[in-house]
């Protein structure tokens, strides 16, 4: 801010020749963030996982409700492609027979991401085995 030669209004901050060091630091910081974001995307484009959606289903918890039971299900897409409208069924098995079946749907399952949902049952599924299965999906 001392003696900038080519300006009409001297002694204002952010002058031409002597740009404060801090501005370059912030610029560099911004560059790091932007480069990191673009870097992740380039990596995904070049070497990213391009495998089809692979839905891993796990029972998170079972809770009694006023009128039945809810089984909370976690769906994780361990594949590299996104899936939309993933429908799943949950079956309660006892003595190698399906006692009760229920189903639900996940709107979007992006790659390497998880979502949670719940399926309702009328009878207590806790003493029995719960089998989860993804039926199908739509490409977004």
């Amino acid at each position: 801010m001392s003696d900038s030669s080519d300006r009409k209004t001297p002694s204002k901050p952010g002058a031409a020749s002597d740009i404060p060091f801090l501005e370059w630091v912030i610029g560099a910081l911004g560059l790091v963030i932007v480069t990191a974001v673009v870097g992740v995307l380039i990596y995904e484009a070049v070497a990213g996982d391009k495998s089809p959606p692979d839905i891993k289903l796990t029972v998170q918890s079972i809770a009694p409700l006023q009128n039945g039971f809810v089984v909370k299900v976690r769906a994780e897409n361990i594949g590299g492609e996104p899936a939309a409208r993933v429908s799943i069924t949950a079956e309660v098995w006892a003595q190698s027979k399906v006692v009760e079946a229920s189903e639900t749907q996940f709107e979007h399952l992006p790659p390497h991401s998880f979502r949670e949902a719940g399926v309702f049952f009328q009878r207590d599924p806790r003493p029995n085995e719960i089998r989860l299965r993804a039926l199908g999906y739509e490409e977004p």
Partner: protein
Amino acid sequence: MIPVLVGLSHYCGFEPTFDWQDDVVDAFVGYAVAFAASFLVLALFGEMQPGMPAHEVVGKLALQAVGGSIGALLAEGQFGMRDEHAEEEKENTSHAGELFLMLVGALFLALSIAPTEEVALIANKMGPAQAIALAVLSLIVMHAFVYALGFRGQADVPEGTPRWSLFLRYTVPGYAIALLASVYLLWTFGRTDGAGVEHLVTTAVVLAFPASIGAATARLLI
């Protein structure tokens, strides 16, 4: 949110302010006005029902009031008489102030888009190559605004400043701010829960497109 409002009051609030206490008072006045206006509008649209739990009422009002309060503080710049004080304040905006205004612009524009399902939906449809192209487009559009509009008649950008210098000092940090604001808003609305890195980055780039335009044009709004 309050610190952003205090800062905004400093740069363009609805009355000339003289010290930071004034700015804090104005920020709260702006928030209160927005809170009341939000209640009125939500009640008109039937979104405020007698049977609603308190946390839902407060939550809806608080969320609506965020955008509303920024609008309240911007009102002077939009409709008010431009007095000399405000003009002077604008002329003297420092580099940090410039970046702060970019943050406000990014939040203001992205706030109404972040809660929608469409952001994640679009991100799901896009491949990484398209996301890169969108990021590059955002940077180009931002730089065009920064270069052509943002600094028109500005004393702190003398002639002969190389373009790359402006690009590195204003456009790149501005886009980084748009990205961070996008991630913050996505996180606020629970859109980052359970998301993988790739999906998170793509979603942020999608939301950062409008956010970056908001950031670059903040100077026109304010």
